[in-house]
Each structure stands twice: as C-alpha cells, then as structure tokens.
C-alpha cells in the first residue's frame, strides 16, 4: 500500500488544483477576517469581539469548516472521478497491490488534505485575527490554555469536514462524475439548513435533525446555534458517534462498489 500512497501524494502535490484549493483556503480565511474586521470597525462592536485573536479558536473554526467542506468535497470528488474520466484507473490498477489498497491510499491522501486545509486555514485565521486585533486596537489577551483550545478547535473542524468529504467520494465513485460528487454534498448541506426548521416544527419529525449530518450533529460539535437552539442539540459524543457512523457507511459503500465493479 505504501507505493500507492507515495504515488497518490506525488500526484496530489503536482496538481495545480491542489495548490489552488489550498490558496483559496488561505485567501478565504484571511479575506473573511480582514473584510469583517474592516467593515465592523465602526458599528458592529460584537463582530470585532469575535474576530480578536483570543476568539480565533471559535470563530476561525467555524469559517475553516465552511470553507474546508467546499474545498475537500471538490478534491474528494475529482480525486476519484478523475481516475475514471481520464481512464487512468485502467492504467494504474493492474500495477497496484490491489483495489482496496488503491482506495485506501486515496482515502488516506484525502485525510491528509483535510488536515492541511485545516492547518493552513487556522494559520490564515490566526494571521487575520492578529491583523484585525492590531488594526482595531482590540483586546489582545489570549485567554486560558489558548494553544489547547486552538488545537481542540482544529480537531473539531477537521472531524466535521470528513463526513462531507466521504459523501463526495462515494458519490463520485458511484457516478464516475466529479460534478455529481461535488453537487450532492453541497445540496445535502443546504437542504439540511433549509429543512431543519420544518422538521423541528413537525412533531413526528422532531427527532430527525439529530440523525442528520449538519443540523444536530455538526452544530453540536461546533457549538453552533445557527440551525438549532442550544438546548435542542444532541450531546457532543453522541454527535461524534453519528458522524462516525455516516463516515463508516459512506466508506463501506465506496469499498463495496469499487471492489466489485468492472472497470471498463
């Protein structure tokens, strides 16, 4: 499996798309901080409070998640669908140590990409928050255990990106289409946001948000009350378990399909 992993990393590091996506991660985070920091200077004091360096673990995590989902979904889908559309799966597979090794190498590479996106995103957020703090002369105290909280936020951001990346991967593998692999997770994301109020207001569907990806579970891990009230969110460990179940299901479907599919 190691030769395949080396090959995957080689391809990923030599692909312009990878560099562009990472550049977007940095640019989006830095841009968001500077834009909000400059716009919020005169009127929105509470926005500025969220952007100061001591709050980067919280606010930065949420933006990294939002940007990271789109970037990793894009990479996950094109990483596997590209092999089919270019026909390279036929070139590579006979040389590979096996189909499962091929898929495992791809998934590990995808996992590493998630980590790099989160790391770079947080670095950009950190830089952005330092600049916003300096420009607006905000409170520069870091608070207790800043490094620990920052690390925890990075882990949480990475964790909640993975279900969408896994969904994109399995859809792209089944459909052999990057477009489907990118579009469906994004549709799922927005559909959840739009439909959750309907679910919570319908007695027989009240339980549903806790079983979905974003509405109850990712919100719980990110401490977000954007979709559900804080009291409606499931516990964090329960949420982590549900997301892990989704990831396991998506990856199992990917293996099941790929190991039995005819590569024509």
């Amino acid at each position: 499996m190691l030769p395949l992993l080396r090959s995957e990393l080689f391809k990923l590091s030599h692909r312009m798309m990878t560099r562009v996506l990472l550049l977007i991660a940095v640019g989006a985070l830095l841009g968001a901080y500077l834009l909000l920091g400059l716009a919020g200077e005169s009127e929105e004091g509470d926005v500025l409070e969220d952007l100061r360096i001591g709050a980067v673990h919280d606010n930065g995590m949420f933006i990294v998640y939002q940007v990271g989902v789109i970037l990793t979904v894009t990479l996950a889908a094109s990483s596997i669908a590209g092999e089919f559309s270019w026909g390279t799966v036929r070139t590579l597979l006979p040389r590979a140590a096996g189909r499962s090794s091929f898929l495992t190498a791809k998934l590990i590479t995808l996992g590493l990409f998630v980590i790099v996106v989160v790391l770079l995103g947080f670095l950009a957020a950190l830089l952005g928050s330092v600049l916003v703090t300096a420009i607006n002369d905000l409170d520069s105290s870091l608070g207790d255990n800043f490094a620990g909280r920052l690390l925890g936020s990075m882990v949480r951001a990475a964790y909640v990106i993975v279900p969408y990346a896994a969904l994109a991967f399995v859809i792209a593998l089944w459909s052999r289409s990057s477009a489907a692999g990118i579009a469906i997770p994004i549709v799922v994301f927005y559909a959840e946001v739009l439909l959750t109020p309907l679910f919570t207001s319908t007695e027989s569907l009240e339980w549903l948000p806790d079983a979905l990806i974003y509405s109850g579970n990712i919100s719980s891990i990110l401490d977000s009350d954007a979709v559900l009230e804080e009291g409606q969110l499931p516990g964090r460990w329960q949420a982590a378990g549900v997301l892990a179940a989704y990831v396991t299901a998506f990856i199992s479907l990917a293996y099941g399909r790929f190991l039995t599919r005819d590569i024509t």
Partner: protein
Amino acid sequence: MNEIAKRGSPTPVAPSGVEVILRTMGLTKRFGSLTAVDGLNLEVRRGEVLGFLGPNGAGKSTTVGMILGLIAPTAGRVEYNSVSLKQIGAIIEAPAFYPYLSGRDNLRALALASGDVPPGRIDDLLEYVGLADRPKSPYRTYSMGMKQRLGIASTLLSDPALVILDEPTNGLDPAGQREIRSLIPQLAREGRSVLLASHLLHEVEQVCDRVAILRRGKLLQTGTVSDIVGLGGLLEIQVAEPERAAEIIRALPFVQSVSVQGERLSVAAPEERGADISRALGDANLYVTAMSVRHSSLEDVFLELTETEAGPETEGD
C-alpha cells in the same frame, strides 16, 4: 505443423518445450443479456507475438480487461504461469495518463505505484520512445503519436513478461508506425510475449507469430499467420459451362465453397486438390481452360471469417 484451433475446440495445446505464460480457460463475460466474451480458450506463449483480431465489439478489450483483473469473468478463469499481474504491461483501448502531469511525471507516478522500478529506468524509456526532449511538457499538450509513445514506455516500466498493446500505432506517422512495428519483434526477442490487438491486418501479418480471431465474443480461429492465411486460398478455374461445373465441384467432399463469376469459378479448396477437380470436370466432359491459385492475405481471411453471418461451422458446434 498445422496449429490451427477452431471455435469450440478444446484449449489449444502448445507444442512441447514451448512455455505458456498465460492461458484463458472458458473465459466468459456477460453484461446483462449481452455475451461479450463466450468461452474463450486462449494461450500466450513466452516470446511470441500474438495478434488479437476482431471487429469492433468482438470482445477484445473485455478479454484484455479480464486478463488484467479489471473485469470479473462471469465464468472461466485466467491462469498466469510464471508471470504475475504486475509483470504485465498494457495499454487498453488508448493510452490514459494524468493530463496535468508531464510525460516523465506520469511515468514516475506509475513507477511509484508499482514500487519496483529501478532508478534511471524512466529516463531510459523516454529516450527509447523518443520523448526525452519534452520531459516537462504536460501530457495534455501531447500529440496522439506522443501519447502512444508514452503509453508504450509505460508498458515497459516494470520489465514486463507480457506486453499488451491495443492499436499501438494509432495516430503515429508512417515513420512512427515503422518504429513501433520494429519494436514489437524486438520485445519478443528479449523474451517478452506481446499480445497485439489491432485492426491493421497488414501490421499484424508483418509482426505476429500467431493470431487469434474473435467475433462476437467467440474465438473463430487461432494459429500461425501462415496457417491462417493458408485457410483462405482459392482455386480460380475457367471453364466453358460454369454453372454445371459449379454443381459438379460443389459435390466434391474437400470443397468448402464455390462461387461463379462469368466463366470463372472461385473454389475454396486445398491447393493440391486442383488435379482432382480437373479430373471430376473432365469425367463430365467439361474441360478446364485455365486454373490458378490465388493466395489470400490475412485481411481476406479475417473478413471472410468475421463477415460471415453465422461464422464458420466447426465440429462440435
């Protein structure tokens, strides 16, 4: 020795002392109601160039896919003797590489995946196929000929025992085609076997030791090129009453077919039976005014075999 094996025959047996490196046994693939490959018995011998012929949709690529483990057979199996799957270098249908990588980087990605390519091999191969002067150009900027050359280089990365080439001269200029045609026997001289799928029958005739002809997933004929070509020999006979002569000739047991064109008959029969035909006509007071032998090309035989609606009837069918 005549090595021709016909459809429905048991697995071809190589002459003693000839090593078979790959054998398909009753290999079958169905896609729903379509049978793409039907009970294929085929063997590839060490150091030979085997031409794999068939019209579009005959099942060639599906067979190659099953040999490479890309397609699961519905029935039958592929037996690898003293060769592993990783020792097979193949281009299937067309060269396929990462468009954003250069030729060298594409080979490097494949070499990394294989894990057994010695250092320096990539540069040697780029030199070998004439791509050393554009090592950094992205694959997407390559001409069709360059893509084919890179494809051939990729098949040789892991010092393969068997090289499978699917239309390797597609898109090449005449000089490039000649280079590839000279490369193929060279591969065989190095002890590699080559399975060459091609529509260019003159190309196959020039470089292949044996050919296998496939139609609608069934193996119609296998044998040496000379034996296969010998199948299609025709006796051309000029005679005064061609229709009556045709009836008499058709009744002869060694005659496969007779067609009448004006005063001339084309008779599919062994060349050495010319005297017997002449005698039979003479017994009926019909005298041959001219007789000649027309040797077929591989193309003639291929077209005759593959364009016949039901294919040739053989024992056991």
